[in-house]
């Protein structure tokens, strides 16, 4: 029996032994003692005697011992609860004291009384009611109690294991609930900073760290605005060089995977020791490249950072790394999309330089109008993009027709009327632009059904077409054209007022008339400045 199980078993075993009228002993290198207080007078005398202790310590040299059952003297039985006789001699063990019939025989009792310095007659009188055991009874009782001791030992071992397992399970629950919370917060439509702040906070609370910080690398352009960002949760003196530590850790942990626990930062290079005595560091890695580092310290209650916390932190950081990777992929696809869009609008502008900036202004006006009309933010964004590309079909219209001053022939006008259809065909192959097509195809339809290409009327004209059509007409009237100069704002607004319900969706026209157009005029000024710069450059080139 090990020392630990001795401790856990002796309590309950002593209680049961006492209830059964048996005496349980604890045997150590320096003596023998009864476990429990309710011990018979004679037995107490026996146990306390040096004579008995000598017999007990010599038990293993006795030839009479078998399976932990010893006859220390005639009728004096000692049963030891241990199968392991190889254990260190000075280790404590548990045993049972049993009094056999032979002990009551006059001669033996006389010898014991002499050894214990007791008066034999008085002792005999006191022992009159004692139930003396036969050797076989003593052996059976010893065996039963030994089994009980083993069972109690097994129960306490199981209880300890159960406790450990439950503890581990609780940690797993914690981890699972944390990962669940984070993964449900991982949608890309919330600002990433909110997500990271939240992650730091949760981690700090779950791991019982005083503070947790996340430093994102500055070396990855695909992270866009997140580059070099830092998030912190918990209590930390903000004068400490936390950001510098973050940057140092990113350098030191580049190329590493998994967590690092540092119990004493004084040996670390850099500023670590100024920030915290102990540190938990987890790099966030994607494709072997370090994207960020999560680090924390000052564990609550001054405990050491343990590997359970570290594992929890590491699995959370895996999730965060995936989130960062997704953000980069999103950034990639968005920048590719916007790049493609700008290429398209530049192509339109290059074709029809007289309307320089027209696409961008129509996009802006459409966005302003859509927002003022109470359309949801996501749709407003798409309307803006549709505005950018609404004239993409002009790529397919001959340049001399587009820039012809004066009146167009019927054929030329027919060619112009092709551009919504051509534009729709250009975009049709791009899945991500599919929803923009109505804006491109129908921006020349009229509310009264007299527009082109399909002569749609009223609400049959899709929203994108009605919004962009209005914005397009406004910008066309407000800027110089090959065939006329720009009209004044009053004239243009009066025209819109006049044409609501014929050319324009009356409700949208009402909203438009109330718009604050200052962003639009600022944009016009910017476009004019750019165009003048371009003209000047091309003139210079002409001179050279």
């Amino acid at each position, binding site marked *: 029996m090990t020392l630990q199980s001795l401790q856990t078993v002796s309590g309950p075993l002593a209680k049961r032994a006492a209830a059964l009228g048996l005496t349980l002993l604890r045997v150590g290198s320096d003596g023998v003692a009864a476990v429990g207080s309710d011990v018979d007078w004679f037995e107490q005398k026996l146990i306390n005697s040096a004579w008995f202790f000598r017999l007990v310590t010599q038990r293993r040299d006795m030839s009479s011992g078998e399976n932990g059952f010893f006859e220390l003297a005639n009728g004096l039985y000692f049963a030891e609860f241990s199968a392991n006789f190889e254990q260190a001699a000075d280790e404590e063990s548990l045993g049972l004291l049993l009094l056999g019939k032979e002990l009551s025989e006059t001669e033996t009792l006389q010898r014991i009384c002499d050894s214990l310095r007791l008066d034999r007659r008085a002792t005999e009188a006191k022992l009159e009611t004692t139930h003396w055991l036969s050797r076989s009874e003593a052996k059976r009782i010893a065996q039963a109690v030994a089994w009980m001791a083993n069972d109690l030992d097994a129960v306490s071992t199981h209880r300890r294991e159960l*406790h450990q397992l*439950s503890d581990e399970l609780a940690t797993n*629950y914690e981890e699972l609930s944390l990962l669940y919370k984070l993964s449900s917060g991982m949608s890309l439509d919330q600002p990433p900073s909110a997500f990271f702040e939240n992650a730091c906070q949760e981690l700090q609370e779950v791991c019982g760290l005083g503070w947790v910080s996340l430093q994102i690398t500055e070396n990855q352009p695909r992270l866009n605005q997140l580059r070099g960002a830092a998030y912190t949760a918990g209590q930390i003196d903000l004068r400490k060089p936390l950001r510098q530590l973050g940057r140092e850790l990113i350098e030191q942990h580049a190329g590493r995977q998994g967590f690092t626990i540092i119990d004493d930062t004084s040996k670390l290079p850099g500023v670590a020791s100024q920030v915290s005595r102990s540190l938990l560091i987890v790099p966030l890695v994607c494709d072997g490249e370090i994207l960020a580092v999560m680090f924390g310290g000052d564990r609550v209650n001054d405990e050491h950072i343990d590997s359970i916390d570290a594992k929890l932190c590491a699995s959370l950081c895996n999730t965060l790394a995936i989130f960062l990777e997704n953000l980069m992929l999103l950034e990639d696809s968005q920048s590719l999309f916007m790049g493609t869009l700008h290429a398209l609008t530049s192509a339109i502008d290059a074709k029809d330089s007289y309307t320089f900036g027209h696409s961008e202004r129509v996009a802006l006006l459409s966005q302003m109008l859509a927002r003022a009309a109470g359309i949801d933010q996501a749709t407003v964004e798409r309307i803006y993009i549709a505005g950018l590309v609404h004239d993409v079909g002009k790529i397919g219209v001959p340049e001399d027709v587009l820039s012809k001053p004066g009146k167009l022939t019927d054929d030329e006008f027919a060619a112009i009327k092709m551009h919504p259809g051509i534009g729709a065909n250009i975009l049709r192959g791009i899945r991500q632009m599919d929803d923009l097509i109505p804006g491109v195809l129908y921006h020349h339809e009229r509310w009264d059904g007299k527009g082109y290409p399909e002569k749609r009327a009223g609400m049959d004209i899709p929203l994108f077409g009605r919004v962009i059509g209005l914005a397009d007409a406004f910008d066309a009237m407000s800027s110089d054209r090959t065939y006329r100069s720009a009209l004044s704002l009053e004239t243009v607004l009066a025209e819109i007022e006049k044409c609501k319900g014929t050319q324009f969706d009356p409700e949208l026209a009402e909203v438009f008339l109330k718009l604050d157009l200052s962003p639009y005029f600022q944009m016009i000024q910017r476009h004019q400045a750019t165009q003048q710069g371009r003209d000047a450059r091309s003139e210079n080139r002409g001179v050279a």
Partner: protein
Amino acid sequence: MPEQPTILICDDEPHILHVVGLKLREAGYGVLTASSGKECLHLARQHQPVLLITDYVMPGMNGIEVCRALREDPVTAEIDLILLTARGGSLSDSDIDDTGFAAIFSKPFSPRELLAFVKERVAIARVSNSEGDE
């Protein structure tokens, strides 16, 4: 009040009993566990715990039925109730309203958060009890 408040946990899954029981014991609460609704009602009437944490889906009586039965019995009507449910489980609003749960935790829940909530509720129960005594 020196005596430790008793909390009853009811779940047919033993691992929940072990985990929640462990956390509560470590925090110094007396803990009773039941693995069925019937056993739960019996223990609740016998010991009148301050709080019951019960699973919703169990064979036999479900958590809502257990809580209704407790509410109907004056002896157990005042017991604070916390319901554990599987995430995305089917619980109607009327079930929740007329049983008056202090909270509903979805599995996998955070034992830390559950314990924090229990502490809060027990503190409230103590304050209102001592007010009643005066």
